[in-house]
């Protein structure tokens, strides 16, 4: 029964190598909450841009006739990982958690597992 701020804070502090996290509505592209990031890395801009990633993937799956749901999306940069996890909320409002990880410090399998737990705790 965490509130959004606690959930984001937990993601940032408990996940090794996390440098930023955002909770994003993927229809409007608005970040409902952000934590971390930096002057050179605007999480609001990243949130809006990554909604297009989700949409493109969903459209592709639609065209292919795939019935499964997207659990998460991993984007690997040379020095960062970007992890996008779609929320299976009862509200059905289409939200995702967006996590930025420092590739040198992060444990990807662990991060994925912890993000799943934080999603469950958010209970939305």
């Amino acid at each position, binding site marked *: *029964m*965490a*509130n*959004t701020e606690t*959930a984001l804070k937990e993601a940032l502090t408990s996940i090794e190598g996390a440098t930023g996290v955002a*909770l994003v*509505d993927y*229809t*409007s*592209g*608005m970040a*409902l909450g952000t934590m971390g990031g930096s002057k050179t890395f605007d999480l609001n801009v990243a949130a*809006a841009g990554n909604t297009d990633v989700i949409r493109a993937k*969903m*459209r592709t799956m*639609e*065209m292919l006739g795939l019935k499964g749901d997207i659990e998460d999306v991993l984007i690997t940069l040379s020095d960062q990982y970007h992890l996008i996890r779609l929320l299976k*909320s*009862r*509200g*059905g*409002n*289409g*939200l995702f958690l967006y996590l930025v990880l420092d590739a040198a410090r992060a444990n990807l399998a662990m991060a994925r597992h912890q993000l799943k737990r934080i999603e469950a705790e*958010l*209970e*939305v």
Partner: protein
Amino acid sequence: MTALRTPPPPLPVRDKAVTRALSPMLTRLAEERATGVLLREHGTLYLAEGRVVHAESAFAPGLDVLLTAHGTLAGAAWQRAVADTPGPLQAAELLLDLGRLPAGALELCHLDALYDAGYFALAPSSSPGRFRYDNTPRLGPLPSVPVVALERETLRRRLLLHRLWPDPATDSAPLVRAEQRSASPVTPRQRAVLDRVDGVRTAAGIARNLGRQAFHTLVDVRRLAAAGHVVPAAQVFAHPAPPPPPPVTDPDIALLKRLRDALEAL
């Protein structure tokens, strides 16, 4: 010989402040950290110490619809809470205190509803807004939003809609299905919207019927319009003729206008 220089006359420019601040009155109220209720043509903003704590609009489904439509909360529980409290915000806080609602779910629904109604409240209006100083709105346990954040998001949303499909007619008109069926695929979310297009409902009506945010429905409808699935129903009321342009007196501007007209006529 010294050349006498007279500065050129200033060119007429549009007032940039008009496009930057959505509502100068709201900006001023935020600066003076006002508490009260701002009534605008398309919606109402509740301010506490210059921050937006709540927003309502006839075009956007309220917090109650968003909370109860998808099973986050039972409708009966909401009705009981509303009966015991003066407003929807207090009802939500009561449910939170009673432990009937998870904090995260309520916060997100509250923010969804606030930005959604705020988008319509800040829409261009034909009449000036009115502000009533009032001590009722207050900063509660639910998150409040700075005025600049709401304005920024509203502008971003306008741009997003414009990018999807530049014709705003589908935002407010009753919708009908296009006569020639488009072959482009429709996502399940858009399918639900398309199924409710009946020639009577507007995007706002569909949003309420589905229990979804109105802005999200505008996004779906504009995408459906861009893909050729829906069109706005023919307007019953004729648009009033635009007012004639003011007479031009400055000879330079008159010359430029004649030049422009001539170029356009080529």
